[in-house]
Every structure is written in C-alpha cells, then in structure tokens.
C-alpha cells in the first residue's frame, strides 16, 4: 500500500480529506504511483504533471523520507519506506511569494 499526501487544493479537488492509499504493483516509481493516483482520481489528471509530456508541473515538488525527489527520474524506484507504506510520498506546492 502506497501512501500519498496531496496539497490542500488537490485534496479538495479529489474530494478526499486525508492521505490517499493506493495499490501499486512493483516496481514502485513516481510514474507508477502517479498513474495509479490519476486512475483512482481522474480529476487530478493534468494537475500534477502535464497531460502530454508527463513532466512535473513547475510549481510542484515531490518529497519522501526527507529527500527531494522532484528531479529524480520518474522511473527510479521509490525509497523502501515508501514502498512498504511506512512513509508517504508527499506532493507539495512550491511556496511562492511572501
């Protein structure tokens, strides 16, 4: 079970109140987790990554286990703690402005 924490506005859009739990087949990667997330919540398509290029939207970041995964390959395996469900994958809106 993969745990994903979404930012406030995306939780509202997906109509979920807490973290999302997903079944994702191994190997568990950013791409496979986001694929599963968008399959469960189609309204999130295009809000985290571009519809066509599948690139991360510029103002969003990915973190897990206190590591910034934003610039990792989307096909790189996620940390074991994420795969085991001990730690969540965090989707975070970059903070802009004061």
């Amino acid at each position, binding site marked *: 079970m993969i745990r994903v924490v979404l930012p406030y506005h995306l939780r*509202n859009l997906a109509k979920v109140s807490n973290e999302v739990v997903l079944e994702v087949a191994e190997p568990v990667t950013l791409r496979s987790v986001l694929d599963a997330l968008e399959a469960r919540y189609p309204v999130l398509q295009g809000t985290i990554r571009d519809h066509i290029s599948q690139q991360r939207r510029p103002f969003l970041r990915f973190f897990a286990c206190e590591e910034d995964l934003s610039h990792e390959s989307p096909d790189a395996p996620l940390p074991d703690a994420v795969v085991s469900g001990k730690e969540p994958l965090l989707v975070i809106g970059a903070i802009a402005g004061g």
Partner: protein
Amino acid sequence: MSQVRVLVGTRKGAFIFTSDGKRENWEISGPFFAGWEMYHLKGSPADPNRIYASQTSSWFGQVVQRSDDGGKTWEAPGGGLTTTPEGFPKPASNRFVYDTSEGTGKPLTTHQFYDGKPHPWEFKRVWHLEPSLTDPDTVYAGVEDAAIFKSADGGTSWHEMAGLRGHGTGSQWQPGAGGMCLHSIILDPSDPKRMWIAISAAGAFRTDDGGVSWKPINKGLYSQYIPNPTAEIGHCVHHIAMSPSRPGVLFMQKHWDVMRSDDAGEQWHEVSGNLPTDFGFVIDVNSNDPETIYVVPIKSDSEHFVPDGKLRVYRSRAGGNEWEPLSKGLPQSNCYVNVLRDAMSVDKMDPCGVYFGTSGGQVYASNDNGDSWTAIVHDLPGVLSVEVQTLP
C-alpha cells in the same frame, strides 16, 4: 416573477448572487472552489441550470467545472471513470491540447513573445467559456495562449478549432500585459455558423462557416503603440460586445479607443467622443436598447485605476460619441480600483440591470439602466468576471 442570478469569478473562488425581479435584496452563496482563480462562469441559454466554470491555478493548472442545478453542486465532467465502457481512455475535462493532427489540425509553430522573438504555444488557462445558444452540451472556450476550443459533450472533452490559430497570422500574434488570451466569444443568434472572437494583443476575428475558417476584422483600428498602427493584426482589443437583438452591430473597448462596427466587423470607427479617457477594459450593451452602451474609463497606461479617485460608469444612449457619467451610489473619492474585461454584464429585465465587479472586490448592481448603483458585496477577492442570468 423573474429571477436574476449573478455569477462572479474572483481571484480566490466563485460566488453566486440571486434576487427576484426587483433586484434589491440579494442572497449570496459561496465561495465555491475557494482559493482557486475562477476566471469565468457562464450559464447555458438553452438550460439555465447548466453552468460552466473555469477554475485555474498557477500550481495545479486548469480544471473545468460544471453544474446542472444552477450552481448548488458542481462536478468536473470527465472526472469519473478513466475508461469508457468499451475500454477506451476517457478524455479529461481539463485536457486542452492544441490540435496538430493531420487533417483537422495546424502545425504548432510559434507566436511572438513580448520581445518579438518566436515563442512556442503553451496552454495556460481558460479565460472565457461561451455556452451554445441552443445546446447545453456545446460550449466554447477561449484560452491562453490564444486559441478557441469546443466541447460537444458538456465539457468532458475539448477539441481545438484550429482554423483560427492556423489561419495565417498566428505567428505574428503577441501577448498583451495579461498574457496572450482569447477573451471574447460572441455567438450570432441569427446565424449559427457565425461567431466573433477577440485576442489580446492580436485583434478581432470572425468565422462565417462554423469555425472552420477565420479572418481578421480590424479595419479602422488605429494603435499608435505598434509599428504599423493600422496593421491587419496586433491590436490590443480588450473586449467586444453585441446586443443579441441586433446581430452584426459590435462595440469594442480597445486598449485605447472605444470602437463601433455596423457591418459585423468589416469596418470599425471610433466612438470615444467625450470620454475622460478612452482606455478601459469592459464594454456592454443595454438589453432593451441596443444603442445604449456602457464603459468604465480607466487611467492608463500605467496606473490602471479609475481617474480622479472616482468610480464612474459612462453611458451612451446614442451608440457612442456622446457619453454621460453615472456615479449615483458609486464611490466618488479615494477610489482606485480597476474593472477587468469580463467583469460587466447586463440582465434581460426592464429596466435593464447592469452589473460590474472591481479589482477591490466590490460588485455593483443597477436595476435602472445605470442611473443608480448599489454594492451587492463590498469585500470579495478581486473580481475577474461577472455574468448574469435572467431566469423565468
């Protein structure tokens, strides 16, 4: 007695006001989609309970929302199952992809950036949603970077009408200060194949064949800030308006100049007349008298607030040139708000109601053709758009 419903998009959510035909007491609901920029909401003339809304964010991109109960509840169409019953991928309602397909599409190429350099087309947001006059499931979207999209399935999927972006001058289009947006879409009630659109800063365009082919309609416009002031395209048109009762007579608020065309845009002439400044964003037409028009003059080029600290709507009862200030009920000191291009609308009552929202979060209403005004609300987030529905 008829009812009036006012749809307000703001920088931090959407609001809906309702009143009876007297338009004196208002019920306010919202915010809907709190925290999101709501660029535009508009109801279907064919089914007033069908409302479309453009929800957008620099962080999370574009979402299209739809209500089928007059704005009480909303859904993102296409946000359900990911596949059709046949197992095909289901399109997402927020998927706006420029059409480059062979046959219907056009090569993506480039437009000009602010510095004149070629710049790739990038979808940013939906500025304006224009529902069909006859079919609740058909709706047009004006987007940034400028293009027009159409949905024939209630906003579930969108397809670019690529003849506009690819008609020939697209590579010369340039963004205005607010971005290269297609902000105005007008449908002709007398001819379902005719529509007008306007782009900042490319100009106005018309199709006579249902959106297959388009042509610039900017003759008579004069823009001193572009290399050729009378060029075919490049004019910063801020908004265009037309009375449904008189198709083909168009009014335009350009960056500078208020303009009028009596021949569907073939030729424009200036009707700024005695306005204190002919810069502004909004323009609209009285629903009962197509010669009565409204603008809100704005001080520019840099300030972008009303002149002299006074909020005044200007009305012409002569189709332009002769203007009178309307200030009863509006702040006449220390007021420094702007009124953005889609933030004025009229109802279909008699006398005509006129409504506009400001960058300061006020929404003003007049139930007497603009003679007097009251603020329905004072303290919303900055207002991006105002649309009005007149209900049975």
